[in-house]
């Protein structure tokens, strides 16, 4: 039997691929969204900043920021599931992802996105996780949930349909 890969090799490969996916998108950086990874599970983290406020009286996160955070989490999570097999079988070199913008896999395109606002977003960090409910050759359907203090008390959720990137041109 082949010896398992050293943990650092596995971690470095996966973290490099994730960084390549996220760091190349200016809008993700602008909103201050990062991703925590546990194995293949991703959690989006929206780091609080004053510029994310919509209603300064409450104050509450701007509804557009909440929508954008959910959409970013959906797209990154969907891309991550597409990338995972290629990454783990060695067909994809994670270093190439960070080095060359042109070599990065094309991201899925949003067809439609429907957001439910369940309670107002508080002026603090927010978290989101996406579930790919269907992933076909051309289309995908993704559900995403966001919360702040309690995982059970969502402040927003969304469902979206995405057009898959063409594989190999």
């Amino acid at each position: 039997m082949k010896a398992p890969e050293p943990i650092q090799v596995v971690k470095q490969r996966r973290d490099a691929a994730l960084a390549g996916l996220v760091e190349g998108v200016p809008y993700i950086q602008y909103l201050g969204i990062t991703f925590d990874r546990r194995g293949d599970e991703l959690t989006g983290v929206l780091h609080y900043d004053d510029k994310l406020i919509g209603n300064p009286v409450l104050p509450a996160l701007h509804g557009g920021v909440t929508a954008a955070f959910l959409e970013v989490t959906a797209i990154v999570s969907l891309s991550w599931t597409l990338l995972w097999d290629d990454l783990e079988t060695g067909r994809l070199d994670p270093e190439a992802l960070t080095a060359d913008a042109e070599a990065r896999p094309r991201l899925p395109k949003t067809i439609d996105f429907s957001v439910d606002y369940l309670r107002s977003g508080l002026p603090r960090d927010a978290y989101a996780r996406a579930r790919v409910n269907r992933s076909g050759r051309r289309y995908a359907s993704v559900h995403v949930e966001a919360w702040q203090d309690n995982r059970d008390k969502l402040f927003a959720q969304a469902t979206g349909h995405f057009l898959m990137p063409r594989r190999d041109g």
Partner: protein
Amino acid sequence: MTDASKRAAAARQFISALPHCRALNMVVDEVAAGMAVISMPWAPELVGDPVTGVIHGGAVSALMDTSGGAAVLCHPDAPAMTATMDLRIDYMRAAKPHQRITARAVCHHMTRSVAFVRAEAFDEEDGGPVAVANGAFTVVGGT
């Protein structure tokens, strides 16, 4: 001041008070009874696809959401406050990079507790909207 100019002034004040709208450089172009037109410039930090320079759908959502809220506040029933309850956006095509995006929202129906909104977003090309949206907004303190 006439009703129309009061409405316009209130809408401009509404937008300028919202930190995220200031961050995205949104401006109120036009308001009427239950209608608002708000636009924002293309900016490098709003790009979602670095290869093409196309703006991220999330930034378009923020503009549509803001125009929807402004349309509700401009409604003759004059609600004191509103918040988005749900918003569905259909993305027709990618917005042309380096072009201004303009969202036009109409509050087409209002009850004592809910306002219904339709919105369309355009770039500077002639060919149809880049995105359309339908939303329901909460209404607080209407007449």
